[in-house]
């Protein structure tokens, strides 16, 4: 009966563990609000765009941009931090007054607090706007997955510091000053922490795309440098403690490791709140006692395998670990409430990549707690009989703990923001662009609806089904990756979609989301990344985003190539024809004209052709005059989709897209 009560307590502890894991995961420098707000249309142009982030952005490492509806970049003054607001508000000021139209503001922000990278965008309209400016308030800012280097660095840092702290506290507190394997354990742990802290800086420099010098001088780089400095002290002290007996240098190494954990806590998201820093630091410390302690106990068991088993030490550690576990849960709960906004926040977080990783980690934490309970109730009492059970269970615990360390390192790089869910209610807006695709292995078929299908805010509705049966595919996560064809200056962006099944009848195979990734007109490659278990399937699709109100004229005559002319609302034209338009060698002509009918000089042009059963092909184009480009290409008879993009000298873009049947020769 007593065993059952303890099991119940363990289960409660496990629930606590769920939020424990959320503790260090934190929130990145996400966009909290903007003025103008996302999706609004203003009668008069704003002098500036104010963007308030959840953490102070480091402007030396961050990028901001503004595009008009044609994709032309709007000239901006250097962004400035607004006084007050804790340095969390940045102001973007256009050089010239904004004219009527829809504007998309993109940002790629590095948090000064923790160095994490977040990217996203907002859109707003000015004056007479064609089409609807769709608010994207529910859309999350995009935070890329932490790099492998970042995860490895953090895991090494935590592992090294955990062992140093455990050696100091458990060694002196429970093992009577004995640290098994001291000569090797201490220097290796110290060095591991130092290497881990250095790798974190390298990963940070890579993630923000800046050199070490820039990162080191930036506000975001300072916490990394402080961490490296303290870890160097840890490594030195631990090395000295390994060769000199006694507790003094062991205590110095332990203190230095505790300081390193404090520095790490200030460099995380808790850094914005002193009280949360202390709670986070306590959280780190007790985890070190709990997890690092059983690794030490295993070493002690091995060291005494030919002598009397360390029963007293095991019992002392067991008591210490029990108290540590309670503090782990309590501190984790405080951190979770702060970061996620309570249990409702935890529930929402479970819909994210963060939540998936969290759930896996909780499962491992449950295993660890169960193994701890087993040790306390079964393994330690049997130790007096010389049973090897304790050593075996601790071995499993160490493997589990290492896995949890890796998952924690991953979690700290992920935002716990919930994914956007398109409201089930509201008017049904017809999809402006629909595109279908399947993966190379023809296992998955997708159909993507994009509404309204114009530059700026759009909603995405992706239907994912089995290629053969048409049944919904039980995907775990679906992401759309957006690449503007022929526009290398535009960074690849992505949007995670939310499963449309929750509360939406008949939506089991739908994944939905919002975003402003399709920021400019022209051809785009959109790749659906469908994660199912350990497998990921990629489905590339090509589509065209056209400016609103584009006029298309088609001239087809006997003995003539069919000429297609796209006329923008400003009167500029893009003329195209395929000559001769039958299977075999063809010349694909693209010419731009201004509103007066004169040839319009272009800086570059792109022609993308996509056969009905194949992948998009970006053709080599040759300039024959300032506004006239030609691609020589061999086209097979059949249906082709043709995307055109012409970039004008003022940075604007003329685009066109249509389907053409290439006849038999």
């Amino acid at each position: 009966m007593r065993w059952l009560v303890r099991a119940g307590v363990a289960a409660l502890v496990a629930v606590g563990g769920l939020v424990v894991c959320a503790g260090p995961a934190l929130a990145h420098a996400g966009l909290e609000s903007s003025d103008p707000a996302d999706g609004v249309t203003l009668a008069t142009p704003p002098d500036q765009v104010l963007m308030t982030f959840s953490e102070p952005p480091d402007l030396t490492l961050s990028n901001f941009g503004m595009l008009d509806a044609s994709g032309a970049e709007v000239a901006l003054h250097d962004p400035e931090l607004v006084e007050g607001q804790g340095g969390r508000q940045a102001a973007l000021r256009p050089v010239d007054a904004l004219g009527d139209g829809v504007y998309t503001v993109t940002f790629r922000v590095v948090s000064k607090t923790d160095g994490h990278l977040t990217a996203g965008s907002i859109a707003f309209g000015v004056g007479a706007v064609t089409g609807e400016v769709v608010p994207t308030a529910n859309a999350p800012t995009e935070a890329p997955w932490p790099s492998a280097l970042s995860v490895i660095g953090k895991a090494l840092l935590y592992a090294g510091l955990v062992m140093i702290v455990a050696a100091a506290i458990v060694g002196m507190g429970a093992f009577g000053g004995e640290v098994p394997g001291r000569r090797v354990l201490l220097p290796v742990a110290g060095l591991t922490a130092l290497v881990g802290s250095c790798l974190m800086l390298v990963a940070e420099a890579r993630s923000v795309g800046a050199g070490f010098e820039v990162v080191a001088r930036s506000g975001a780089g300072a916490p990394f440098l402080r961490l490296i400095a303290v870890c160097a002290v840890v490594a030195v002290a631990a090395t000295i403690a390994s060769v000199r007996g006694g507790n003094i240098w062991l205590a110095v190494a332990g203190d230095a490791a505790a300081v390193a954990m404090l520095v790490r806590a200030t460099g995380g998201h808790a850094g914005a709140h002193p009280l949360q820093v202390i709670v986070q630091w306590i959280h780190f410390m007790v985890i070190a006692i709990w997890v690092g302690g059983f690794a030490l106990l295993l070493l002690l068991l091995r060291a005494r395998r030919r002598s009397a088993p360390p029963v007293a030490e095991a019992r002392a550690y067991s008591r210490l670990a029990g108290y540590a576990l309670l503090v782990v849960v309590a501190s984790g709960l405080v951190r979770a409430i702060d970061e996620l906004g309570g249990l409702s926040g935890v529930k929402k977080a479970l819909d994210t990549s963060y939540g998936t990783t969290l759930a896996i980690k909780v499962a491992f934490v449950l295993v660890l707690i169960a193994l701890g309970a087993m040790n306390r109730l079964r393994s330690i009492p049997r130790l007096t009989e010389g049973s090897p059970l304790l050593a075996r269970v601790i071995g499993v615990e160490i493997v589990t703990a290492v896995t949890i360390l890796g998952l924690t390192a991953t979690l700290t790089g992920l935002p716990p923001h919930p994914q956007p869910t398109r409201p089930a209610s509201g008017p049904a807006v017809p999809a402006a662009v629909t595109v279908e695709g399947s993966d190379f292995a023809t296992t998955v078929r997708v159909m993507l609806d994009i509404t309204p299908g114009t530059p700026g805010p759009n909603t995405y509705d992706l239907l994912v089904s089995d290629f053969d049966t048409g049944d919904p595919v039980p995907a775990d996560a679906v992401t759309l990756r957006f690449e503007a064809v022929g526009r290398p200056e535009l960074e690849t962006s992505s949007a995670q979609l939310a499963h449309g099944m929750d509360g939406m009848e008949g939506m089991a195979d739908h994944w939905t989301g919002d975003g402003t990734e399709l920021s400019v007109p022209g051809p785009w490659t959109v790749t659906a990344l469908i994660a199912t278990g350990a497998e990921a399937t990629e489905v590339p699709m090509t589509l065209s985003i056209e400016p609103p109100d584009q006029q298309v004229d088609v001239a087809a005559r006997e003995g003539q190539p069919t000429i297609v002319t796209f006329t923008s609302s400003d009167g500029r034209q893009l003329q195209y024809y395929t000559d001769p338009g039958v299977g075999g060698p063809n010349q694909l002509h693209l010419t731009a004209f201004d509103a007066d009918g004169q040839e319009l000089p272009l800086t570059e042009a792109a022609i993308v052709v996509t056969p009905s059963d194949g992948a998009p092909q970006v053709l080599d184009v040759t300039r024959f005059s300032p506004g006239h480009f030609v691609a020589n290409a061999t086209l097979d008879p059949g249906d082709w989709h043709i995307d055109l993009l012409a970039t004008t000298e003022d940075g604007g873009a003329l685009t066109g897209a249509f389907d053409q049947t290439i006849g038999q020769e």
Partner: protein
Amino acid sequence: MRTTRTVPAALLALTLLTAACGGSGSTADGSASSATPSVARASMSMSMAPGPRPSTEATLAIVSPKNGQTIQGSDVTLKLSLEGGTISTTTSSELVSDEGHLHVVLDDQLISMTSDLESVIPGVAPGTHLLKVEFVANDHAPFDPRVIAAVSFEVAG
């Protein structure tokens, strides 16, 4: 692979328009051109607004190289004779009958655009080649009827 919910209607409209605009000699289904574009966008308006292509009485001939001629060296001198047409360096969508410039196509590859009746095609590889030159309108598109001259020649190895 691309569809829109209005593509069937767009295709139908395009087919009807194509039939309506087909010149004499159109086939029964009205598909005057073998290449039939369909606009895969619901939000765009579409029409056959442009009028007929500009006509011309111009005649074009390739004076050199002559048909079947064997040429020594890799540089081929191109001499053209254009009668009834005016060479213009202006490029515009405002089209004028009999006024335009020349597109040079070698072995099905557009290699140059010129306003000169005499030019050199450099670096032609040994072997037999098909040379086509077209007198095109000021918007880089063909006249109606098309004005094309073609010869086959050989570059000695």
